[in-house]
């Protein structure tokens, strides 16, 4: 009996802000789209997030941050993922992230940034599209 492959996704909040409404809504949407959502909760350090992605063998890491610390924390996370050999993992960013920061974030390995008004369906579609390629 071979079981169906599931998308495993780590939803994490790096940094110190506690605005987890978005992270929770998106986690629920991912679950309702048939994914396995590993929720890590608030105040995750880059090391904790990368290590979680490794141990859970995640396909996707979805980061939500609203405090403005994304330019410090996101690059740290992608760097650690690479260091752990997780080169294929799809890393997404969300939260309050100004347009002008997005190119720099993409350069360090954030696949896409989804702002506050994004339809959850759009994110799910993006994940399905980009994990299929692997």
């Amino acid at each position, binding site marked *: 009996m071979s079981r169906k492959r599931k998308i495993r996704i780590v939803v994490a909040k790096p940094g110190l802000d*506690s605005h987890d409404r978005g992270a929770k809504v998106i986690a*629920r949407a991912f679950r309702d789209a048939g994914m396995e959502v590993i929720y890590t909760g608030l105040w995750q350090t880059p090391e904790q997030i990368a290590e979680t992605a490794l141990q859970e063998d995640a396909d996707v890491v979805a980061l939500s941050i609203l405090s403005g610390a994304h330019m410090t924390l996101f690059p740290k996370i992608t760097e650690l993922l690479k260091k752990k050999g997780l080169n294929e993992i799809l890393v997404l960013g969300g939260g309050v992230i100004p347009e002008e920061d997005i190119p720099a974030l993409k350069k360090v390995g954030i696949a896409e940034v989804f*702002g506050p008004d994004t339809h959850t369906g759009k994110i799910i579609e993006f994940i399905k599209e980009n994990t299929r390629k692997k």
Partner: protein
Amino acid sequence: MFDQKRLGEIQKKEKHWKEETLPGWIQNHPERRSDFHTSSNIHIKRLYTPEDIKTVDYVNDLGFPGEYPFTRGLHATMYRGRLWTMRQFSGYGTAQQTNKRFKYLLKEGETGLSIAFDYPTILGLDSDHPMSLGEVGKCGVAVSSLQDMEVLFNGIPLDKVTTSMTINGPATMLLAMYVAIGDMQRVPRKKLGGTTQNDMLKEFHAQKLCIFPPEPSVKLVTDIVEYCTKHLPRWNPISISGYHIREAGSNAVQELAFTLADGIAYVESAIERGLKVDEFAPRLSFFFAAHNNFLEEIAKFRAARRLWAEIMKERFKAKNPRSLWMRMHIQTSGCTLTATQPINNVIRVAFQSLAAVLGGTQSLHTNSFDEALALPSEDAVRVALRTQQIIAHESGVTDTIDPFAGSYCIETLTDEMEERAIKYIDKIDSLGGVISGIEKGFFQKEIADSAYKYQKNVENKERTLVGINEYTVKKDWVPIKLLRIKHQAEKEQIDALQKLKKKRNDKKVKQVLSRLHKAAEHDENLMPTIVQAVKSYATLGEICDVLRNVFGEYKEQITI
């Protein structure tokens, strides 16, 4: 409010309207939806008539402004006398930068200060703590010690302004610093005016910026209540906050009910401490959100005031009329702001603040239109403040008291909000109170469910959001330059903190911290010792660490 005969005539007329006039119109102009309802799922009728408010008793349910049950307002003259306090929440970067922003706002006509602290400060961490990396000064001002507070209030006399501090977990320490600054400026403690948010319960069910577990957290809240009752008569020790509950995703009824339930819990805790209800209740204040549904929001504020007065009178037998007052601060709802077509937010904020004013608020913060993108820029803050000034001086709504009273619709909604909130409060009582409800995950689940439902409603277009699921544009346009917090601020702050640690008297710091440790173990009121600690330049992180050792640390409870 109407005599039977007249009501009979109205009923007859309404029946005629429904049978003769309406059907043709509906056939030619079908209604936009089969059902209209508010955020709290309150059904909105096509038309409200005297029939709907026939049970409203003017004297008992509405009364007169400044009199029980305060539905029409707390003050007898309301805005004809004094306008609400225009209080813009602000703070970013270093204490020096925020001091500059404060002075700018005071110059532009703001009437009270409101401090936003950064996340490390809010969580009781010093700026040089590893977890603070990248967060220092980002979402508010960094305050790690009395030294920062000195810079923050440089040139601002504490007897001339009132200050609201959005601080909860470390509220004791920040209030202690404020007291210390007052002492330095030789302002008598009885003259210090302002508010500490100091509402830990809503942190546990909504915002989750907690340092200690629920019980010691409520102990610290109560320490402040007791301390203020005895030493700071002009200070509002708690701002019981629905705002964060709403922002976390609740609907209007949940916001109202959970906030009042928290209020009940604080009153009970202070009474248990041995305080008399009329000693401290007059200084309790509240904080709500003004969301998009104009009618529901006005009703919410009116219902809140009436219900609190009833609770204080009936449940707690308060005698002082001031104990029955629900003084409220309102902030327009941050989560309604859109990142796309941000200039539309100016209009949203205007309607939301109009609802706050029509609801009879004592104090108002208007959000800036660029806040879904970054911390507000100076230009955007000015527009936000001007919005309040336009309502105050141009719209005319401030010239008479509670102008929407008597509206068939508003009075019906006010009753409905109150009834539904009472049901929730009964439910919370049956769960064993707020802390027990938190432990059972009741609030967290209610809020998460509402948040998810809201999102789904937007996505399936049951709820129209302009610029989001309708009337979208391809190319967006942001008319201003966003505020960027330079990384430099973090470095400067850490440098200053480390210099302080070198030059202060470490022996004295150690002594006072060990005294604090003992006091915490012995369940004393910690405020006096914390005042001594901050005056010795013990840092916020050091003080919190002592308490973490005694009280333990908060663990997030997950309910999705």
